[in-house]
């Protein structure tokens, strides 16, 4: 039974990686792959169903929204925004959160007290509300989204890395390094950081999935990039309105979003399993 479990885990990892790779390629080659211009409205062809339903236009494979825009093309171009947010926001949150956690966990003392208090305060905010608040204040745009994600989710890294740094800091190899003459900062960078890296990578993968979701939620509440640029969240928001008349506007971006978030998550889990025996 353990064997089947391992085979399953391997399959999960590869499927997730495959989907994400597909997504990356789609984003890069979007102009080539998309059959139509995602912004082009054609009011005569509004609310056309996907190609296998009666009354469809084969030019619009997955149908159109109320303004006659091609759903498939918008999904393809939407991947660009989703992935850029995932990468940039994910990486930024990672760097800031992990750094704070590392410093707090290793140096302890005042730094730790301040960072821990900050984390407590942050955890008392409902995350979605906080991000909506920030966007409303800063205004829409890619930078705002990234900033919002960093601001609300840095605690995810900080908490875990802090705990890890504390645990590692108590171990013998650190003491030996200090005795050998390494300064505190040097010890932190050269001894602790490499051992904490696997966890950081796992969290980063998870964070990218979270970034995609946060962006989708913000688009859903109409606070994301702009109303014209195709985002999966924006399409879902529109689809929710016309759910009874044009279900495809909601279903297809939802499926894409679902698979993407699932893939990031499973990739993270898979990496965690790979690293685990090495970590402990």
């Amino acid at each position, binding site marked *: 039974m353990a064997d089947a479990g391992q085979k399953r885990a391997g399959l999960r990892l590869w499927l997730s990686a495959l989907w994400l790779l597909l997504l990356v390629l789609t984003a890069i080659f979007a102009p080539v792959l998309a059959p139509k211009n995602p912004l082009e409205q054609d009011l005569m062809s509004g609310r056309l169903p996907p190609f296998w339903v009666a009354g469809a236009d084969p030019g619009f494979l997955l149908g159109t929204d109320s303004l006659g825009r091609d759903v498939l093309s918008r999904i393809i171009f939407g991947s660009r925004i989703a992935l850029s947010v995932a990468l940039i926001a994910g990486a930024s949150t990672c760097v800031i959160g992990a750094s704070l956690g590392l410093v707090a966990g290793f140096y302890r003392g005042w730094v730790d007290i301040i960072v821990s208090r900050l984390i407590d305060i942050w955890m008392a905010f409902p995350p979605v509300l906080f991000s909506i608040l920030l966007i409303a204040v800063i205004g829409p745009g890619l930078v705002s989204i990234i900033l919002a994600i960093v601001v609300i989710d840095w605690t995810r890294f900080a908490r875990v890395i802090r705990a890890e740094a504390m645990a590692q800091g108590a171990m013998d190899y650190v003491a030996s390094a200090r005795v050998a003459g390494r300064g505190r900062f040097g010890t932190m960078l050269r001894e602790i950081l490499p051992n904490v890296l696997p966890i950081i990578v796992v969290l980063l993968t998870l964070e990218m999935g979270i970034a995609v979701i946060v962006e989708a939620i913000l688009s859903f509440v109409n606070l994301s990039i702009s109303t014209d640029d195709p985002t999966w969240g924006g399409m879902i928001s529109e689809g929710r309105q016309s759910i009874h008349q044009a279900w495809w506007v909601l279903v297809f971006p939802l499926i894409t979003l679902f698979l993407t978030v699932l893939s990031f*998550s499973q990739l993270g889990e898979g990496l965690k399993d790979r690293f685990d025996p090495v970590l402990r």
Partner: protein
Amino acid sequence: MKGETPLGMWWMAFFRTFLLRMITTAITLFGVAVIVFFVIRVVPGNPIAMMLPPGATAEDIARLTALYGLDKTIPQQFLIWGAGVVQGDFGTSITLRQPVLALVLGRLPATLELSVLSLLIAVLAGGAAALTGTRLRGTRVEGGIDIANGMALSVPDFLWGLVLILTFGVLLPVFQISGRVTPSLQLPFATNFYLVESVLRLRFDLTVDLLSHMVLPALALAIPLAAIIGQLLKQSLKETMHLDYVTLARTRGYSEAQVIWREALPNAILPTLTLVGVQFTFLIGGTVIIERLFSYEGLGNMAIDAVINRDLPLIQGIVILFAVIFTGVNLVVDLTYAALNPRLRHG
């Protein structure tokens, strides 16, 4: 030490911990208040101007701005607001023209009912998954449960909400996907705890209507939490099942199911408790978007509108209330843990 009974010492320790927790909670709440207060005032644009019809004179704007105290400096505004809060006055909502405290407490029951219902579903579903997985260790059923758990965990409540809307709102329209209750119904309630009251008043027709509106949003919130509970409890049970007292119970004639329920479960629950508490606060945070998705008239939905409309006093009130709820839940979890752990109880 002469004269210090064990009970007396325990009370001293308890009181000391309690006091410490109160102080840290106060600091946290203060921090939240400061952050939200200053963040929303950084906004460009005057919320008053946004509200008034075009054609309002500069004097109108100025008068209303003064009325809401927005003409003072930010630290001054904070002090005035803080003074009011201590007396129970959270200001007046700019968009809804009513006292913030009343508005916020008015919507709170709806969100509380939804959150608690979700928690119930999550605990029952997660618990059932963990117990079944343990009873059927090594079978394909356990494998299936693990896969389902993994998927449920990986996908956030927002997406589950959308999936549920599509499945049970459109495909098989069994449940409602909008609102808290059918609008045409006459509601004889005294409080806003509709669900609770409907049961207490034996108006089960209303209970059914309310539940048909609440099931899908509650499920959306519950699914990730149920998966976490399922995984954690199953892991905890797995470790507990290896212990000697469990084996001993088997020799006494108890069946496998009895052994899991009587011996393993009470000991496996404790470690799961604290994490579930934290996750419950995340669930409550999730009500913001889920309520929006299902047009459910709760706190979260009102919060989004408040932000979009720059209703500063209302935003502050809601954020503080959420923070109070979160810290409250954490406190309850810690107290419950201390109460249930026999080791802590008797020192």
